C-alpha cells in the first residue's frame, strides 16, 4: 500500500494534540507483490495478528483519545474476514473511515456489507504496475478488474479516490494512467511518487526516476488538469530525492499520526520500527492514550530537543523538523541526523549520487533484478539487511 496523506497540518506544541489519524494495518498478507511496498522487508516474521477483540478495543481507545480519521490498510485489509465488524464499530464510534485496498476481493456482496457497516470511503490503488506493466498499460485484465471495482464503488455512492505509485518504470506513461482514472470515473487521483523505504529502498536504483522524467510527468499532469477541469482532482506528490529541503515527515513525529501494525505495535509512522534503540509500545500492553502521550517511542523525536547540527540552529527547523527520521537512519546510520535530502546535511551527497545514477540511466536490471515483495523473499531477508546506503 501507499502511505495515505495526513490531515491538515498543525503547529507542533509542547503538549501534542490528539492522534487525529489512526492507521490500522490489519494484516501484512497481500495477494500483490509490489516492488515499492512500504511494509517491512521482514514482514513474514511478524507474529500473530491482533484478534477482532483487540482491534475493537484499539478503535474505542483511539476514538476516546481524539482520533477521527481511521484508515484500514495492510497488506490487503480485505483478507481479514472481520473487516465489516471493525468498520461497523469505527462508524458507531464516529470515525470517518477509509479502506485502502487494491480492490482484489472487493465483491459486490462485500462492498454492500461495508456500505451497510458505514464505511465512508475507499481508496483504490492501481495494482502492482511493474510486474504487470504491459497488461496495465494495454488496458486488458487490470483495467477490467478496476472497471468492475470502480463500478461497485460508484454504485454504493462512495467517492472514487484512486492512488497510483509512480516510479521510473511507469512515470513515462502518466498520461495513460490519468486517462484511465478519468475513464474509470475517479473524482480524486493521487499520483504518489515512490518513497524509498522498505521494499522500495531495496529497489531504489531501479525505481528512482530522472529529473527529466519528473519534469515531463508534471507538465503532462498539468495539461491533463487543464483538459479535465472539475471532472477530477489530481494530486502529484513529488519525490523528495530531487529536492534540497526535506519533507515535514508525517507532519511531525507523534503529531497527528498513529499507526498500529498487524501485531499491535504502535508507531508514529509506517516504517519507524526500523529505528534502533527505540522500544515501541504494543496495544496489547498499553492503552492508546498512554502510548500517544507517555511512551518513550512517541516522545523521542517530538519537538526539537533531540536535534543535532545542522538542524539545531537552522532557521528552517520549524518548517520541516529536520525531515524524516527513517531516511536519516537509512542513509547515515544515525536517526537523529538531518535528513540527507537537505543540502545542509553532510550526507547530502548520498542522495545526490543516487539521483545522478538515475540521470545516467544506470539501471542495473541484469546485475540486480527487481525484488518483488512476497513472504518467501521476506523470510530470506532480515530487517536492515541488504538495504543500500548502510
Amino acid at each position, binding site marked *: 500500500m501507499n502511505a495515505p496523506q495526513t490531515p*491538515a497540518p498543525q503547529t507542533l506544541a509542547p503538549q501534542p494534540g490528539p492522534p487525529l489519524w489512526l492507521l490500522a494495518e490489519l494484516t501484512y498478507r497481500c495477494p500483490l507483490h509490489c516492488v515499492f511496498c512500504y511494509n517491512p522487508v521482514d514482514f513474514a516474521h511478524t507474529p500473530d495478528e491482533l484478534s477482532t477483540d483487540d482491534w475493537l478495543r484499539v478503535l474505542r481507545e483511539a476514538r476516546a483519545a481524539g482520533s477521527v480519521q481511521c484508515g484500514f490498510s495492510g497488506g490487503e485489509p480485505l483478507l481479514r474476514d472481520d473487516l465489516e465488524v471493525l468498520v461497523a464499530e469505527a462508524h458507531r464510534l464516529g470515525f470517518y473511515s477509509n479502506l485502502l485496498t487494491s480492490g482484489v476481493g472487493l465483491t459486490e456482496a462485500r462492498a454492500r456489507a461495508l456500505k451497510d457497516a458505514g464505511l465512508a470511503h475507499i481508496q483504490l490503488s492501481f495494482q502492482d504496475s511493474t510486474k504487470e506493466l504491459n497488461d496495465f498499460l494495454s488496458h486488458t485484465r487490470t483495467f477490467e478488474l478496476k472497471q468492475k471495482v470502480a463500478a461497485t464503488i460508484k454504485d454504493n455512492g462512495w*467517492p472514487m479516490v484512486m492512488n497510483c505509485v509512480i516510479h521510473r518504470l511507469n512515470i513515462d506513461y502518466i498520461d495513460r494512467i490519468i486517462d484511465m482514472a478519468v475513464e474509470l470515473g475517479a473524482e480524486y487521483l493521487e499520483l504518489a511518487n515512490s518513497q524509498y523505504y522498505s521494499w522500495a529502498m531495496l529497489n531504489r536504483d531501479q525505481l528512482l526516476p530522472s529529473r527529466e522524467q519528473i519534469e515531463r510527468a508534471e507538465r503532462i499532469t498539468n495539461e491533463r488538469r487543464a483538459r479535465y477541469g472539475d471532472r477530477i482532482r489530481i494530486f502529484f506528490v513529488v519525490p523528495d530525492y530531487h529536492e534540497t529541503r526535506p519533507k515535514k515527515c508525517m507532519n511531525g513525529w507523534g503529531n497527528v499520526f498513529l499507526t498500529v501494525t498487524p501485531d499491535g505495535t504502535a508507531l508514529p509512522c509506517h516504517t519507524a520500527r526500523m529505528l534502533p534503540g527505540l522500544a515501541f509500545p504494543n496495544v496489547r500492553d498499553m492503552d492508546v492514550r498512554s502510548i500517544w502521550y507517555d511512551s518513550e517511542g512517541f516522545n523521542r523525536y517530538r519537538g526539537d530537543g533531540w536535534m543535532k547540527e545542522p538542524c539545531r540552529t537552522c532557521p528552517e527547523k520549524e518548517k520541516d523538523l529536520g525531515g524524516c527520521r527513517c531516511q536519516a537512519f537509512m542513509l547515515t546510520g544515525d536517526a537523529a541526523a538531518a535528513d540527507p535530502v537537505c543540502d545542509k546535511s553532510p550526507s547530502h551527497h548520498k542522495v545526490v549520487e543516487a539521483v545522478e545514477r538515475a540521470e545516467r540511466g544506470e539501471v542495473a536490471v541484469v546485475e540486480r533484478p527487481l525484488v518483488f515483495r512476497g513472504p518467501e523473499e521476506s523470510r530470506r531477508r532480515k530487517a536492515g539487511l541488504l538495504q543500500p546506503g548502510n
Partner: protein
Amino acid sequence: MSDAATIIDTATTPHVSKRFRLQWEEAQQSWVLLYPEGMVKLNQSAGEILRRCDGARSVIEVVADLEQAFATTGLEADVIAFLELARKQQWVDV
C-alpha cells in the same frame, strides 16, 4: 468577498455537501468537516452556522435561530458572507 456572483440570499436553503460530514469533536471542542483523507476544523461561528444548514431552513430562519440562541441581532450579513465562502469551498450546496 470576490466579485463572483453572489447567489445566496435570505430565501436560500443551504445544506452541507454530501462530500463532507459535519460532526462535533469532543477532543477538539469544535465542529469539523470530514472528507476523504482530510479534516477542516471550524471556528465556533462557522460550526454554529453549518449545523443549522439542513436543507429545510432558509437563511433567514438560520439567522433568526442564531440571533435567538446567542441573544444578539444583526447577524444576517455575516452569515451570508460565510455561506458564500462555504459554497465556494464546496462545503455547502444550495
